[in-house]
């Protein structure tokens, strides 16, 4: 049995280092990547801006979020990031966000593997009750990945986004601890 919570079948989750803000700045240059991850205006971040955000949001003594970078098991290359934030401890709920910044790693199960790892962390280390996420409905690859990881469709905000000349919905998904435990029974 693999007793390291943060190691999956294809990837591992790592402590965030100075390399992360640099990678974010690099990934933000692709508007294709940016638009899949963020509903804000797609424009490249400077390394300084991402470093400042990193220091402010993630380097506090006791931040109310858990951010990791995603690394390939085979050669430790950093391919993206994943994190829990918006944790409401008294209700046991949080949001998860994930991005695979390196495009050649899309659609190959790495993100799904990272999501499975962080769900284990959320339910068996943080003892949360549920994990929530939202995703844009022009990102069917992500939606399929979240379904594979065990998320259920819970609702949608209709025509919330305006991109590429048309309106798109924001899809809300969630997974309960009991659902996750059932899914992993016997493993």
């Amino acid at each position, binding site marked *: 049995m693999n007793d390291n919570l943060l190691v999956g079948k294809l990837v591992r989750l790592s402590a965030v280092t100075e390399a992360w803000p640099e990678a974010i700045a690099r990934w933000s240059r692709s508007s294709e990547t940016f638009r899949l991850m963020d509903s804000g205006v797609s424009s490249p971040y400077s390394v300084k801006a991402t470093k400042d955000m990193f220091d402010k949001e993630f380097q506090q003594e*006791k931040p*109310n979020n858990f951010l990791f970078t995603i690394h390939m098991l085979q050669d430790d290359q950093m391919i993206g990031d994943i994190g829990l934030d918006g944790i409401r401890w008294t209700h046991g709920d949080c949001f998860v966000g994930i991005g695979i910044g390196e495009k050649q790693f899309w659609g190959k199960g790495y993100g799904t593997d990272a999501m499975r790892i962080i769900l284990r962390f959320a339910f068996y*280390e943080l*003892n949360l009750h549920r994990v929530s996420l939202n995703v844009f409905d022009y990102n069917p690859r992500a939606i399929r990945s979240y379904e594979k990881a065990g998320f259920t469709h819970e609702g949608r905000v209709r025509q919330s986004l305006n991109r590429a000349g048309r309106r798109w919905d924001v899809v809300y998904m969630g997974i309960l601890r009991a659902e996750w435990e059932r899914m992993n029974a016997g493993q």
Partner: protein
Amino acid sequence: MNAILLTGSRVRLACQDAQETSLAFARWQRDTQYVRLLSTDPAFPWSAEKIKSWMVEEQEKPLQDEFFFNIRTIPDDLLIGFVGLHEFSWAHGDAWVAIGIGERQYWGKGYGTEAMRLALQFAFMELNLWRVSLGVYNNNTRAIRSYQKAGFQIEGLQRSAGRRAGQVWDICFMGILRREWEKSLE
């Protein structure tokens, strides 16, 4: 869903105004017996000014770090003490509770016990905690009896943890589980 939190029959838990509270804390700290029963720190009084700036700093911390209240009497609204939940271990649903009644004429009359019951109601019904912990000097029998009345059980004893006035004091660890608290309401 409609439970009224923070209000009992003889006391209520109120917010901590830094100005008013620092003056009261400074007055209470002149009573070294109060400080010795309350804390393991040396009974060294702080000025109201120093307490106030510390308090303002604490209050600016993220909310999930601690929940401190002033204890005020009903109906005359006198500030007699404080109670607070801190040292949260959210993933495990545990927190520590601290309580002090600074006004001596309110000792031994059930005010602290009622304030503790309100703090436990807040801990279990609003914060949804799993357990609440506390530590108390073993020779503070009045406090231990109060905590037992509120539902705490003795869980352990740290021997010779304090030395004061030529005596050796043990620290008694107490705790209450959510299901015990729920049962005590029946």
